């Protein structure tokens, strides 16, 4: 059974058809990239998968369950987590507490009136583990807004991982990074998404081709081509529509 399945996804914004029938399947443990020119509907598709809004028509199935109309918090509890293109962290709060928010959510410790998260050794250890994974163990107590840009992106990744998801949705994880930062980020993403399903939306073709097991090309609201990186690289339609124009 695929972990995620999109079936005939349509999305209209007051008459403007952004997506006109998107279908794909994602196997457990697969890294899947969605690419396409600006305005192809990548971000809209991403928002529909993560629950920011519902499709006009069509269904999203996660672990066999129809989640098309489920709000984001319920999707997260089912084991799905997303990152944000524009860094979306808790700015005034320490790096540690940023990640702890997700770690305790995973354990169901969200709105308890008596239990104190910082008294739970298991949660604290798990949070430190995630900080190690994303390389922020030395910034534990730093307020998030004091971090350098690359570190904020790492924290964005840490928060995304904090609910121990089975499916990770990454929205342009290397946006705005220098070449060196991008290389480090790619290595980190490869490490932390090991054996997890992952969907990446990305503009940087080097990132896409070095991370993805499979690539879909979105063009004017439909999937133009879907296949292994080599197939996509050599696909004539893709070259015509996208790759040939502005990349490599």
């Amino acid at each position, binding site marked *: 059974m695929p972990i995620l399945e999109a079936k005939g996804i349509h999305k209209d914004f007051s008459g403007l058809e952004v997506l006109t029938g998107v279908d794909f399947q994602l196997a457990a443990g697969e890294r899947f990239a969605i690419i396409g020119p600006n305005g192809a509907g990548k971000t809209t598709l991403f928002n529909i998968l993560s629950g920011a809004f519902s499709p006009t028509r069509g269904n999203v199935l996660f672990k066999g369950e129809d989640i098309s109309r489920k709000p984001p918090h319920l999707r*997260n509890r089912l084991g799905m987590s997303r990152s*944000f293109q524009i860094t979306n962290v*808790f700015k005034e709060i320490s790096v540690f507490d940023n990640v702890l*928010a997700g770690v305790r959510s995973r354990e169901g410790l969200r*709105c308890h*009136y008596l239990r104190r998260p910082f008294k739970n050794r298991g949660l604290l250890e798990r949070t430190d583990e995630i900080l190690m994974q994303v390389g922020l163990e030395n910034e534990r107590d730093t307020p998030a807004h004091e971090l350098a840009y690359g570190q904020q992106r790492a924290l964005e990744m840490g928060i995304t991982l904090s609910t121990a998801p089975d499916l990770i949705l990454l929205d342009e994880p290397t946006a705005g990074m220098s070449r060196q930062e991008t290389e480090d980020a790619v290595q980190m993403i490869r490490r932390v998404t090991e054996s997890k399903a992952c969907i990446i939306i990305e503009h940087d073709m080097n990132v896409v081709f070095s991370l993805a097991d499979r690539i879909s090309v979105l063009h004017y609201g439909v999937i133009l081509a879907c296949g292994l990186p080599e197939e996509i690289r050599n696909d004539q339609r893709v070259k015509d529509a996208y790759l040939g124009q502005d990349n490599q």
Partner: protein
Amino acid sequence: MARSHNPVSRFGLWAVFVILAVLPLILRGYQLRLVTEVIIFSLYAVSYNLLLGYAGLLSFGHAMFFGTGAFAVAILLEHFAGLPLLLAVTLATAFTTATGFVVGCLLLRVKGTPFALLTLAFNALFYAIAVKWSSLTGGDDGLIIDPPQLDLWLLTLDPNKGPDFYYLSLAILGPVILFCWYFTYTAMGRTVLLMRENEDRMRFLGYNTLLARLSLFTLTAGLAGLAGSIYSLFFAFVSIDAISIETTTTVLLMTFIGGTGHFAGPILGAGVFIYLQNFLSELTENWPLIMGVLFILMVLFTPGGLVGIIKGAAQWTASRRKTPDLRKGAKNRHAHSGS
């Protein structure tokens, strides 16, 4: 948000407890009544600050819950002769909590300015109901209460006696205020703080933020109701003033004067407000004018309130004390001030 489990704060807490316990031996009559009033308004202001300071929700309608609690206890005692005091307080608090839940459901999806305006509208609605339903609330005349004696196993407390009422309010409200302090470290307390920072992200981390906000709103309504019920027992009287916009303004002033950025801010604010009001009203009839000017000055020049001033002074003293060590190098000083 320091985790204040250090020996100093623990000692401080015990010291406050001991002082409060022996206060009736030192203070008499009117002075003790003022302290009792401060305790009552402390809970009112603390509950308000959970909304304003922790959740970032500016409400102009907190008096509707304070007033509901105040009227509920008065009406209960009037209509059910022989109702025990503590049961009346419990029922009044429960009723206010339920009211808070209903109002909270209607305010669920709004934040920011719409939230502030809607709470103002609800407060006006509650006030109008209290005025119009005079057969129940006494209208402009208010209700006179004859608080029953409180019989515990060994001792009997008479709410009409100053020291007895002082201990009664301290025993009920003290632990509740302590719970509020504890609450700010619980999962829910932290969730509220994180939601103020970034509610959108919380939703994508599995938090049902609407339910969390409703839950907090209901809690603060119940706490305000409890403060209100003790307030009307204290004065043995309740009028529609308790539910008026002025009572909302009072809690806003207390919280702002004390400072929203620290748990103790509203308690300090309640104390300063009540003593200042008491002092000024003896000097002049126009005391609200002076309070108003003071409030404007504080908002303009000390957004952190009194707690902000105290924190600033403490930092200043600490930095002065450190200065000799740092004279060796400017770089060193920079590193210290940044940490």
